[in-house]
């Protein structure tokens, strides 16, 4: 019996679930992300056989097993390279990559850098829980300085990496941040990422309730998040706080140092920066806003169009074909100097 694929507009969240038992720890932030992605996927209108999830190694990298699409659970840090091969071999596929702060930024730092630089049309979801979960609790490249873990009983001495600044430095054309428990926000970011033509890098703040519980509490706690989260919206002033009474303005010697103003107290809405997702410099500047001195920005930092890598590669192949034909093995073997023995 051949199963006839359902019309894509009828796909539901259930269609994207697999028969595999999900094996994350109870209470893990990954569940919320999985649910959001499974719910979001049908809205793309892409048949599920044309979707591929590629991952590396780590808790987050089990993700493809739970998505009823094509999936490849590869090796530690190398998902960007494998995904690049997938996209180059068939540019018509919708390619998604799932990774974590260790997989993407530690062992795989080089590959993700080059993925973003090349602008391969791949959507990257990087779950950032600031800890190594699958190896049971060592610090990661995003762990805060001084963090005490199993491998750092006296605290870390290495400076953490800011994933958004890194992605911007690597020339990513789409850079965003969302949060595991903000399902609506996450879905809206995923939607924009899916619409973007090129590499979309999405940092998803995610709670590891076993080894680093509460890492993002100040951002997710209902009582504090109005003050600790800055919701970026293109073309809108960077306001936050209860009733949006606070904003980010530029101060300092060169007017290049962000400061917090209280509207009506020491400034007005006109003083506040207006978000422009086409402005790379601004994106980098606000990527530096971190807790506890500033609210944590979430949303789309940058979204610009530039040619994708796979388009360039296939354009050259097509141009060569148009100019020289599809190629003939016998003619190739006889090209250049030959001679005949009678």
């Amino acid at each position, binding site marked *: *019996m*051949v*199963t006839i*694929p359902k019309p894509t507009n009828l796909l539901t969240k259930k269609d994207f679930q*697999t028969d*595999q038992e999900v094996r994350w720890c109870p209470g893990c932030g990954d569940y919320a992300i999985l649910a959001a992605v499974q719910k979001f996927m049908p809205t793309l209108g892409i*048949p*599920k*056989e044309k979707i*591929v*999830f*590629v991952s590396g190694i780590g808790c987050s990298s089990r993700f*493809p*097993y739970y*998505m009823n*699409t*094509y*999936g*490849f*659970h*590869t*090796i530690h840090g*190398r998902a*960007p*390279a*494998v*995904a*690049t*091969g*997938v996209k*180059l*071999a*068939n540019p*018509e*596929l919708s390619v998604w990559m799932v990774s974590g702060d260790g997989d993407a930024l530690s062992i795989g730092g*080089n*590959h993700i850098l*080059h993925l973003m630089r090349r602008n391969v049309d791949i959507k990257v979801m990087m779950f950032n829980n600031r800890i190594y979960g699958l190896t049971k609790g060592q610090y990661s490249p995003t762990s805060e300085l001084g963090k005490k873990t199993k491998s750092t009983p006296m605290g870390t001495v290495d400076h953490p990496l800011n994933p958004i600044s890194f992605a911007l430095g690597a020339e990513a054309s789409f850079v965003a941040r969302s949060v595991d428990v903000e399902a609506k926000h996450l879905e809206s970011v995923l939607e924009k990422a899916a619409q973007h033509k090129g590499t979309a890098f999405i940092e998803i703040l995610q709670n590891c309730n076993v080894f680093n519980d509460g890492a993002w509490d100040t951002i997710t706690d209902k009582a504090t998040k109005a003050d600790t989260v800055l919701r970026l919206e293109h073309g809108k002033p960077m306001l936050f706080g209860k009733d949006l009474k606070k904003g980010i303005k530029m101060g300092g010697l060169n007017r290049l140092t962000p400061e917090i103003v209280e509207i009506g107290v020491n400034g007005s809405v006109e003083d506040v920066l207006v978000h422009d997702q086409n402005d790379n410099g601004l994106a980098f500047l606000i990527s530096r806003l971190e807790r506890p001195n500033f609210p944590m920005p979430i949303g789309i930092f940058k979204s610009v169009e530039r040619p994708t890598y796979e388009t360039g*590669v296939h354009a*050259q*192949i097509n*141009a*060569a*074909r148009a100019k*020289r*034909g*599809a*190629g003939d*093995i*016998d003619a*190739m*073997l*006889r090209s*250049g*100097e*030959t*001679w*005949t*023995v*009678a």
Partner: protein
Amino acid sequence: MTTPVAETPRLPRPTEELDQVVIRFSGDSGDGMQITGSQFTNTSAVLGNDLATFPDFPAEIRAPTGTTFGVSGFQLNFSSKPVFTPGDQPDVLVAMNPAALKVNLADLKVGGLLIVNKDAFANSSNLERAGYNANPIESGALSAYHTVSIDISQQTERALEGSGLSFKEVSRAKNFWTLGLLYYLYHRPLELTLKFIDEKFVGVPEIAEANRKVLKAGYMYGEVSELFHETYTVKPATLKPGTYRNITGNQATAWGAIAASRFSGLPLFFGSYPITPASDVLHELSKYKNFGVTTFQAEDEIAAVCAAIGASFTGAFAVTSTSGPGVALKSEAINLGVSVELPLVIIDVQRGGPSTGLPTKTEQADLLQAMFGRNGDSPVAIVAPATPSDCFDMFIEASRIALKYMVPTFFLSDGYLANGSEPWHVPSASDYEKFEVSFQKETEGFHPFRRDPDTLARNWAIPGTPGLEHRIGGLEKDFGSGNISYDPMNHEKMVHVRQAKVDRIAADLKPLEVFGSPQGGKLLIVGWGSTYGAIRAATQNAREQGKDVSHVHIRHLNPLPRDLGDILRRYERVMIPEMNMGQLVMMIRAKYLIDARSYSKVQGKPFKVSEIMSRIDHELADLGSK
């Protein structure tokens, strides 16, 4: 077809006909010796000589001028008889400077022709840098050779007087002057090289003109000078009728990949990272985009193989290329390929190791790395070409195996094959059996690790196929469903299935051909890879001397051919020459429990025929004394 015509009438001068000549061109790494050598090669090939070449250059692009470690050489053996190797000892040595003389003189035959650029010896710092206290041309140190000392630099300058070129540009042209002289001596036509100059220097007409001029000037110098009392001819070899070309191993490898892509019906995806001596495969393939070839120069060796694996998952014919250090980096990804059972061909152009080792020198020391250099029991298929042109056929064979058995397959070339060249009787695409790949489409009963009962290859379902959505990964899989499984008995079963699949490749192999006495005898030499030429020539020579020696050459290293064990047992002794410490010997001894003897050479240089012959004598004497 070009005919050997000189542009000017030759002076009446005796001409001697020779069967075979070995010439070595040597100079500074910036002296253009590789171009000189390959031009002489191409011209001789078109004249119908059989030949073999051995380019030998330093890892440094431009080592300090005049130093011994900056010497670049190109040796070729051209003949009217069948040629197996580039020759043990040059009959002719061209030394463009003192360092080149210092490094190469010991190899020149006593009484051989030595052509030196005496201008380079007039400079005392040149002599010093090469380690000479006195000018060897004047000191009598060269009296054992027929030394012809020529002011090549000055002759070149004179030919280019008024050209307006800089001193440096003029100096660079002297290799073409030398080539012109050698063309005169060996009755070679200038046309091919003149055409090459036109194409190579198309954007710089004044350089093209200068090179054309000095090439002819060198030729004319031979004609009019009194230095040479005779000239030489080497008649065309008797070769099978057909179309021929000269080809290097790396070019044959790249073309093999393109052909395999056509024969399989799959587009070629080639992921690579530049590394000596494999980079030319990447360069060559990147010229053939119109064949549907995607070349991906990745950020590193790991990304190169990983992208290839991603492409393979998506249904492309995936190939990656590297040398030994790159294989080390790719190991984990190759093992993923073994675990997820995706087809992949890994080109390893071996070089001297360990670590960075000898980047431009040859070695065969990656066999055990290819066999065992991964965690877990991780069987792969391994093939090795025997000559530069054999790279074409063996690459197609590697591809057939990888695609039929869904298994990563190593193609073990080496620096000697990669850069060496030989005339090739050009085949036709129709000479080869096609191996068109069909992807899984049927959904009924599908799971990703369902196997063909004969080959044990898993079915290949690619993204885009409705109803066959599935997940694969490096975790152990359940034999019956393809889902993740940590079951102990299932793991054992899967380990054995992966091995059995590779073992079954042997069912496809043709019987081995034994050269010499296939029915058995005293000594059998077993070779693999680029040692073919030296072993075959030595065996042939020894047999002509009445010695009981045979040669079998293995092109499939894993699995080994099924008839090999029987063949080995027909001889009193088995000897295995390898450019490593005895890696195939270790495999043969372990598998067949026979007392195979190792003949090891790890000098970054191929075996000489004479070395193998001495070893044959040694082994036979040892047997006789027992």
